[in-house]
């Protein structure tokens, strides 16, 4: 490296060029990074309002004891209009009241099954066990099975969308 270049290394002009270079790089990166992150992340964080959806006709569910009911409701999955499928256990507690247990294990979201002989809900994944009240008996699940909010209107049983 010759003397001339050495001088230029520390000249104010050289440091201005360097600073500008970093500025240009930083500017382009920020202007593109912020929208890109928002694009990828923000739609995922939106909370959808939960509506009541039809579970079934009350007359047909009368006397149910931990009866597994699969139901569908129309909803949107991203850009797809779809029939979402859900599965729950329905128990008729009399006087037109129903308890609806979500089958989604409170541990890591596998679907529990009602085992009539043991009167327990068993999870097929990591051995979670819940009693007839949906409370944890055994295994990793940190909390009870969710009871879905229900309402009865005009002979139809509705549950809160999940």
């Amino acid at each position, binding site marked *: 490296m010759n003397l001339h270049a050495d001088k230029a290394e520390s000249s104010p002009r050289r440091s201005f060029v360097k600073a500008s270079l970093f500025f240009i790089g930083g500017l382009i990166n920020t202007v593109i990074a912020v929208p890109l992150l928002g694009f*990828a*992340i923000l*739609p*995922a*964080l*939106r909370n*959808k309002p939960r*509506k*009541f*959806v*039809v*579970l*079934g*006709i009350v007359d*047909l*569910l009368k006397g149910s004891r*931990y*009866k*597994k*009911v*699969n*139901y*569908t409701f*129309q*909803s*949107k*999955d*991203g*850009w*797809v*209009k*779809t*029939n*979402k*499928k*859900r*599965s729950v256990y329905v128990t008729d507690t009399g006087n037109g009241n129903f308890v609806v247990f979500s089958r989604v294990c409170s*541990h*890591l*979201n*596998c*679907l529990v*099954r009602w*085992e*009539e*002989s043991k009167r327990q809900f*068993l*999870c*097929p*994944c*990591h*051995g979670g066990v819940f009693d007839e009240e949906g409370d*944890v008996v055994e*295994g*990793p*699940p*940190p909390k009870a099975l969710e009871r879905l909010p229900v309402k009865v209107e*005009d002979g*139809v049983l*509705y549950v809160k969308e999940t």
Partner: protein
Amino acid sequence: MKRKIVEFFEERIPLRSIEEHMKKPLPRHINWMFSLGAMALFLLVLQAATGAFLAIYYSPSPDHAYNSLTYIRNEVPFGNFIRGLHHWGASALVIVVFLHLLRVVIYDSYKAPRELTWLVGVLLLLVVLGFGFTGYLLPWDQKAYWATVVGAKIASTVPIIGDAVGKILRGGEEVGAVTLARFYAIHTIWLPWIVFGLVGLHLLLVRHLGSSGLPKNSPEDMDTGKPFYPNQLFEDGVAILILFSVLVAMALVVPVPTEEIADPTDASYDPRPEWYFLFLFQLLKYFEGPLEVFGTFVIPTVAILLLFLVPFLSRKERLPIRKRPVALTITSLSVLSLVSLTILGIRSPKLNSTATAAPETEQTEAPSSAGTEVFDFRLEEGD
């Protein structure tokens, strides 16, 4: 004529110095385990090639993914073979990368000045597992769906930001069309770019620092072994050929496990992850209630952090493994626990056989005035 052509290129490309580079002698006593890195690289390229072709037919939407794979399997010539190679190649990659890591530990190759090579290596390991996780969803069958449901929920158990992490991963509150699209993008665009960037860095470091050879090597041993080209490359080639033959046999003989199409309500399905995540599946069973986060977050995170720190936590001098009691103990115990957890995971009882089928009810017919949003589902039947 031939000389003319060679000259033409020599004047334009630094062929000579490339050749010099390739012929550089390696340390003495290098054995077959030093081919594991090259084997991993080969598998990565094989995955890229087979994957690029699978993508010609694959359709990343819940309505079509499963059928597009059925089409690949049943109607596209060589479909089963290409898919088999990609499927078994993925498992082989995990195994080979893991063995490569073990060889680096056994020969104490991660120590100064190769700490950065190790760091980039750990990142590569994580990316390889990321490929496995995102690729597992793509067939959109039962195991795909449920493994992702569980995997995303694991991410949601991260303290404080967990809920957001889970949603960002899924692209929303549940596994669906948005999840499949982003897993496909990550699997086929993001991770390949990242992995080849990291591999480039890894190899640059390996080449710049030279192979570490064996701890017992004397300084003279370091550059008096066989040359990289053609001798080492030939040995790499033999190892790769053996590996490739095994994969071809697997792809031809062992069908890729395929299940029913994903069903979020299936009563009888026992979710299990891919075999190389079974250790985690099993580990999760041991942490109950509020301790859950230890299995899902604390232990994996600490393990990964420790893995990154390995070169900085160990002493400076290089020794054969039998003279490093601490390293030997930790390594053996880690391998032992991974293997035992995996075996326990494989043998973990399924509910399927025990549960009595409960009476099932499909949704009872609902009045059309139901308070749900009504969309028009009819397909536009154009003419």
